[in-house]
């Protein structure tokens, strides 16, 4: 799964009201972070949005780079947030 998957997920996600209505950075600096204390390695974030998230040697989620988001990646970050069973993903605005 490469960026084709990312685009497809994005397309699906943009049809999803919660994501669509909140997917504009509008010039603000918006970052996605994973709370390592809450992450239990379900792997939902790096499976859904492999361009935004990766994993450590234990399989716990990691943010790629500094987590700064644009309009497109914000949608994917929202999607990951909406699928984390541990509520370990936060989007800081």
């Amino acid at each position, binding site marked *: 799964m490469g960026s084709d998957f990312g685009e497809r*997920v994005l397309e699906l996600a943009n049809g999803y009201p919660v994501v669509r209505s909140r997917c504009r950075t509008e010039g603000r600096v918006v970052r996605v972070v994973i709370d390592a204390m809450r992450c*239990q390695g*379900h792997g939902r974030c*790096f*499976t*859904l949005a492999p361009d935004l998230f990766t994993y450590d*040697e234990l*399989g716990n989620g990691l943010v790629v780079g500094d987590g700064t988001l644009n309009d497109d990646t914000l949608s994917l970050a929202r999607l990951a947030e909406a699928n984390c*069973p541990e509520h370990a993903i936060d989007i800081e605005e």
Partner: protein
Amino acid sequence: MTDTQPLVTDFATDWDHTDPQWVADPYPIWDDLRERCPVAHTERFGGGWFPATHAGVTAVAKDTENFTSRTVVIGNGRPGEDALPSPIGVAPPITSDPPFHQIARRVILPAFAPGPINALEPQMRALCRKLLDDMAGHEVVNGGSGYAQFIPTAVIRQMLGFPEADEDLFRDFVHIVIGGVNLPEEERIERFMPIEEYLVRQIEDHQANPRDDLTSYLLNVEVAGEKLAIEHVFGTIILVLIAGIDTTWSAIGSSLWHLGQNPDDLARLVAEPDLMPIALEEFLRFYAPVTMARLVKHDMEYLGCPMKEYDWLMLGFPAANRDPVAFKDADKFIIDRMENRHLAFGLGIHRCVGSNLARLELRVALEEFIARFPRFELADSAAVTWAPGMIRGPRNLPLRVAS
């Protein structure tokens, strides 16, 4: 066993997950309990509680102060202070509590992280294709005992590095281990004897001839400069056998069962392969196969119930996944559900260690099946049988793949 138990008439006060009604279709029971209780009680199994809500399951799963994982499979009686952790011996880390839990889990997580697991994909695909090749010419195939069952059994044998020539023997052992979980202690020990001897032989062979597999990994991994005790290695291999096979087998089977009755979902998956990672999570939510148990650590009032030390607490992840408070249209299978914080792999520190493996097996098994049979249907719904107990999935699953 509960064969001699009377049938349940009120699950709120007398729940029994081995009752035929529960085994056949537990979902209406859980919906009813959620409305009425929402924590059900039983005097069976020595006494226990069953929260049917997402909130109740979440609270217990994250609470290692008031609940212990010393036994995670409900047995017939009340496990006392001295009872061996279920199902046999120690199976760390699933039967561990903090602080030892963290050590035992830290040891095996790297072996089940996405990197090493994703490397198994080509051999998984080859395995599925061979099983499908063997179905050629058949109008009706068994998606359970002829397909879903074989996949995790072979994958786990390969991961452990046990000889391919032992495939049939290994499968027999797996059936005994899985089927033996609810047996009385003495019978279980007797039936496990040849398996224990086999596993000890395999471990000794790996000690003499280390290689690149999970058994050698467990034998060589070090914690604070020390290798694991041999009982720990043995226990973790047992855990992999118990937790890694009928669970995934059930998930694959339930998904095929669904697709065999929902041609629109099948057609959509065939037409939109990119949907699979999202659809997988809905299969896992809707047909979550695994229920776990905890023991109450001390007398207390919890979720409004007077719980007593060593009462069972049945942790119904599948019931939590159907709670309408937590999931919109919880009782509907929505193949492109975009918000899906399901608990199929548990929650908190005991999140299924094998979740990356299970997800990959489920994906590959479904992708290969629908590539070979883009149209199939349930051949005989009355012939479908469901595994009783804490792992739910279809065992006999006749699918018509050609007409």
